[in-house]
């Protein structure tokens, strides 16, 4: 099965139930209606009853209840923890393995519980009678699930899929984080699902130009697809070598409907529009006017005309890379074009209308005054939005798939080079590297490795020449951690926790190379302790109580600990114990809020309880 296909999870009591010895007809028909290819299950030999020539997505079903198989006499109950665990496996678990996470979750609202009787089984096989509370729109289990899922997986896009009336629940599902509602019985249901995937789903690039299944990349692709639907100018931001031009190409492609038109019943001729890349070398004070606006032909003087790049891009997109380096004269000219939507060729008198979307890119903080970039131009360049591309260190789980791609490319670029396997140790070294030059640097490193070792069947760590080494020097303070605020924090002020967990999952201590890691227990422990301290600091900031007398806020340790543990029933004394365990080892080094939090905790709980442990 195509592994780039989107992957949908459907949580529904009717479609998710398993039937002993027979197929779930309702599930089959749902798949046939929405053109969803069910993923083969390891515990089943069932073959699908049909073949879909062009599936919209892969699909996995979850009942959301226990038991999954319920014959007459069984009692069916809703299963919140089990459902969350299923989602977690396909979300965090998939990311850690470098697989595609859930692109979209389709969630039913009403889950019927209770006993499976002869009568209820006759009506719908293996379904229970239902209880009156099941059908109460204020208490649908689907809304409870929605709450829990959105809290733990805020980036996971969720749509409600139900045949219940939308009006009764639209406010509630909107409040709880669902992005939309698809009526199961709607005649245009498949089109609505396709649209939902396109607009809101975490969908990889099916063309394979942008490689990766990590959540930061899928989020960037989603922003790109949303932006592609309108013709407003866009700004792409990201460090050097992150693929800004490739993303601009993606925006252009999806905006031209090349990818989605083929799914349309009424697909007409594909609409092609130009995509012009402006080489930043031509944006000099002497050259820019003729290159961008063109030259008016004048037969009287024998001047040959030239069509400018903006005119060539008419009806399409013009990509301007490294916009921050543009000289002031060019900025002024561009600003006029963006304001008036007209150009005047060099030597012409009459302006020409232009319908061009400008997609710009930069790796700089253009807002900084020292850069001298006109903010009024910047505002027009990002009128349609800003898309952030993550650095490679924020998407380490994509390194294996990128590596395999680049190694094959390098092998194919020259004749006579052997095909090689990449050893696990080499891959670990690649994953652990900092990659300040991002994807471009990774590609260069792998091409270098392949070209210097054309006659081997294995790529080993010794073949790799890396610019940086991630090994920490002994004694470096963990508070100057290398996990610097990256793309996720800068762009959204949110957390980099998924990336951090992915990094941790990828760390490997090689028993054959003990020199690299022996004697570092104290460093590792301090690193973990400071990480927890920073986690706690964020919670203290988030839960500060601000009053007129204390505008900077008073810290509150009880709400802060509830926040980091997710335990709303936590008592104040237990919260104090947790603070002491986290911060106690750092007692002599604390300042500010953390110092104050520890002091409060010690005042509340002067003695450590007898049954406490050092672990949280």
């Amino acid at each position, binding site marked *: 099965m195509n592994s780039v296909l989107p992957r949908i999870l459907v949580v529904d009591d009717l479609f998710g139930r398993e039937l002993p010895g027979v197929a779930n007809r309702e599930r089959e028909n749902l798949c046939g209606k929405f053109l969803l290819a069910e993923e083969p299950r390891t515990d089943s030999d069932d073959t699908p009853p049909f073949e879909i020539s062009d599936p919209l997505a892969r699909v996995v079903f979850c009942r959301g209840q226990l038991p999954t198989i319920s014959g007459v006499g069984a009692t069916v109950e809703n299963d919140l923890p089990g459902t969350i665990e299923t989602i977690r496996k396909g979300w965090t678990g998939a990311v850690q393995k470098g697989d595609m996470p859930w692109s979209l979750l389709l969630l039913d609202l009403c889950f019927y519980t209770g006993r499976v009787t002869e009568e209820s089984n006759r009506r719908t096989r293996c379904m229970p009678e239902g209880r009156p509370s099941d059908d109460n729109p204020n208490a649908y289990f689907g809304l409870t699930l929605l709450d829990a899922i959105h809290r733990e997986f805020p980036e996971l896009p969720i749509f409600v899929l139900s*045949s219940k009336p939308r009006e009764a629940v639209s406010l509630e599902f909107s409040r709880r984080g669902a992005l939309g509602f698809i009526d199961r*019985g709607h005649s245009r249901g498949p089109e609505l699902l396709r649209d939902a995937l396109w607009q809101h789903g975490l969908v990889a690039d099916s063309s394979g130009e942008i490689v990766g299944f990590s959540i930061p990349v899928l989020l960037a692709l989603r922003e790109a697809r949303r932006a592609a639907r309108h013709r407003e100018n866009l700004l792409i931001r990201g460090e050097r070598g992150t693929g800004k031009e490739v993303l601009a190409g993606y925006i252009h492609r999806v905006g031209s409907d090349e990818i989605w038109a083929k799914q349309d019943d009424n697909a007409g001729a594909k609409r092609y529009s130009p995509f012009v890349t402006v080489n930043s070398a031509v944006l000099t004070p002497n050259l820019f006017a003729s290159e961008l606006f063109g030259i008016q032909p004048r037969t009287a003087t024998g001047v040959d005309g030239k069509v400018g790049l903006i005119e060539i891009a008419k009806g399409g997109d013009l990509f301007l890379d490294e916009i921050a380096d543009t000289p002031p004269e060019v900025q002024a000219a561009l600003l006029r074009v963006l304001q008036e939507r007209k150009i005047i060729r060099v030597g012409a008198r009459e302006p020409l209308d232009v319908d061009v979307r400008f997609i710009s890119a930069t790796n700089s903080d253009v807002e900084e005054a020292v850069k001298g970039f006109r903010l009024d131009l910047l505002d027009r360049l990002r009128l349609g939005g800003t898309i952030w591309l993550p650095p490679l260190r924020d998407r380490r789980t994509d390194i294996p798939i990128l590596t395999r791609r680049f190694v094959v490319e390098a092998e194919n670029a020259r004749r006579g080079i052997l095909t090689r396997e990449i050893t696990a140790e080499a891959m670990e070294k690649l994953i652990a590297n900092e990659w300040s030059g991002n994807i471009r640097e990774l590609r260069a490193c792998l091409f270098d490795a392949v070209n210097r070792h054309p006659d081997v069947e294995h790529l080993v760590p010794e073949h790799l020449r890396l610019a940086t080494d991630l090994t920490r020097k002994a004694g470096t303070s963990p508070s100057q951690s290398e996990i610097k605020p990256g793309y996720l924090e800068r762009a959204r002020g949110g957390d980099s926790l998924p990336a951090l967990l992915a990094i941790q999952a990828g760390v490997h201590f090689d028993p054959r190379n003990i020199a690299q890691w022996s004697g570092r227990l104290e460093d590792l422990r301090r690193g973990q302790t400071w990480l927890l301290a920073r986690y706690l600091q964020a919670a203290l900031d988030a839960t500060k109580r601000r009053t007129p007398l204390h505008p900077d806020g008073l810290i509150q340790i009880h709400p802060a600990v509830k926040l980091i543990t997710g335990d709303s029933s936590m008592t104040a004394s237990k919260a104090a114990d947790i603070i002491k365990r986290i911060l106690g080892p750092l007692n002599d080094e604390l300042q500010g809020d953390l110092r104050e939090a520890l002091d409060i905790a010690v005042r509340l709980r002067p003695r450590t309880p007898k049954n406490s442990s050092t672990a949280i």
Partner: protein
Amino acid sequence: MTRFDQADWQNRRSEFNHQWLKNRLLSALDSAANVIKGRIRGAKYLDAIFSKEIAEWPERRRDLLTLLTDFETEMSPRRLFDTSPFSEWEPDIREVLSELLHQLWLIRYPIRRWISDALAAAEAVDKGYVELVNSDPVERNGAFDAQFAARFDVFREACRSLARNIETLPNQILVI
């Protein structure tokens, strides 16, 4: 105001419209449409839809007709008088007032039009069913016979229209 036990008619309506018509039949028909359009390959699957979901229509039709016939009786506000304290009133008074309330309800809401629209929609489904099952789903070179495809679409739309008509019926007893 005393709450009525309208659960029985609602349960029957839910079973027909929600659980069978929308969740089973229409879902199967939408999937079958993809077979007919060539998006799905599976001749046996299409046969199964005809022999299972579509074949249930004649029996389900009987349930539906009973459901629609029972609506005016089971969902009329005259049932209020079967519950306390109204059930303790004098029989003569109860009879007059309940009939008055029932007639006001019929005037206030287009109950009988709703029912006749639903019956007409059921008849359209029935007609479409007969024509469809008498068609020959001949497939040549991956394409189905045009007449069969057209009759299928008519039947599917009739079913969708029926679902909409049944949804129009109120989901609680309306008291003036």
